């Protein structure tokens, strides 16, 4: 099963590689031609589009909000980590997980005593630009073929943003305590202004990324889970990268599946409802503290 997404950028995309000085630099991939093209990592897309929304749905559906330990939450939301010194392979535990949790069958994760592999393969988000033409042609379905006309260059879609973090003497001077009073420029006792200008690069609104999910040997439940998570992600704003609180990172996504998907989402929701207690019991047992020998 192959799901391809065409995601239009609705707001500036600030999926960053790091910070130089006080300027944030966007993530880029180097092509064989030597050019560096903005991209969104498969890791980020997998997390934001599938794991985060899928795990939140599970926690809500299983009635586990406020009931989970940190290791359990880390397992569901971030993949967990191997913390016990003696690893082992518990086949029954793996089989039960695969039967009960399509989300974890797709994504895998790490229990305290064993690592569980996932089946889902997420591709990087490829910017729709001339430099990426050959890579896009390899990923896009036949129905979505690229035109022969030249696409815009990647750099034409990269812009910048700048913000200023204010200071209380400017925004609410009437609330400042007497002895902490700052001068009218917002300067502290050392005389330096506390206003902070920060800026960075972004992929401009109106650009588009193509990304996809390959789910080999997937069942209808797996596909239902994947599509359900993607729909929840879109419903929640469809954000990737940083500064979502400032309105950045919004993608409007269109999906293409290479197989019929009718009823998959409903079947997944029914499955979660039916296996609710078994899922809760499995999570409790998998993270139960071992008795001292």
């Amino acid at each position, binding site marked *: 099963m192959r799901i391809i997404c*065409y995601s*239009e950028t609705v707001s500036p995309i600030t999926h960053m590689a790091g910070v130089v000085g006080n300027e944030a630099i966007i993530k880029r991939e180097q092509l064989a031609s030597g050019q560096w093209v903005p991209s969104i990592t498969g890791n980020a897309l997998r997390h934001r589009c599938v794991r985060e929304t899928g795990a939140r749905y599970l926690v809500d559906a299983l009635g586990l909000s406020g009931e989970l330990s940190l290791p359990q939450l880390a397992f569901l939301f971030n993949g967990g980590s191997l913390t016990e010194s003696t690893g082992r392979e518990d086949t029954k535990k793996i089989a039960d997980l695969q039967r009960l949790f399509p989300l974890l069958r797709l994504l895998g994760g790490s229990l305290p005593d064993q690592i569980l592999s996932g089946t889902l393969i997420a591709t990087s988000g490829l910017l*729709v*630009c*001339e430099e990426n033409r050959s890579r896009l042609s390899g990923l896009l379905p036949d*129905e*979505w*073929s*690229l*035109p022969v*006309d*030249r*696409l*815009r*260059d990647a750099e*034409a879609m990269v812009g910048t943003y700048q913000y200023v973090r204010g200071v209380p003497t400017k925004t609410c001077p009437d609330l400042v305590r007497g002895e902490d009073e700052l001068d009218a420029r917002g300067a502290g006792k050392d005389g330096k202004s506390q206003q902070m200008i920060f800026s960075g690069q972004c992929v401009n609104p*109106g*650009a*588009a990324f193509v990304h996809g999910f390959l789910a080999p040997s997937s069942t209808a439940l797996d596909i239902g889970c994947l*599509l*359900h998570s*993607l*729909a*929840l992600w*879109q*419903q929640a704003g469809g954000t990737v990268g940083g500064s979502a609180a400032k309105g950045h990172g919004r993608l*409007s*996504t*269109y*999906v*293409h599946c290479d197989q019929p998907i009718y009823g998959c*989402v409903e079947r997944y929701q029914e499955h979660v409802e039916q296996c609710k207690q078994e899922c809760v019991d499995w999570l409790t047992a998998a993270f139960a503290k071992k008795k001292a020998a």
Partner: protein
Amino acid sequence: MSTLQGLTTEQFRQKIAGLIDPAREVNQAEKQNLKEEAIRFLSILAKHYALKSDRKSLWGDIGNVVHKSLAKLGGSPDLERLVNDCLDGVLADIAISSACPAVCQIIETFGARDDHWRSQFATSLQQHLRPWVVLARSRYSDAKDGKVEL
């Protein structure tokens, strides 16, 4: 729960149409021409600089004036506005600049070009301002020595 959206072939074509480059590709000869014209433009500004009497900060001021003027231009191909803002920024005397053949030539050169070239000029100047100011300084020095025409 909202469902995911799909795209028909036609809808996809319409989406992609917005990402097609409306401009033709700039070849090497055009890039070189853009560079030469930009350096010439910067050296002409030096001749008409009247911002400060001592001219010690001449090239720094020109860099700042051009940077600000390009920001105000905002990607528009209106290079006459750029010339106006830059001459205004260096406090060029209108009477002197109106009598300057170099200023007249550069305005005519910009006017003879198409919108694509003008946009490329503004973009290239913005992206290469600092090295081109360095080269303009050298060109202006040569012009003063009579080695090249301003």
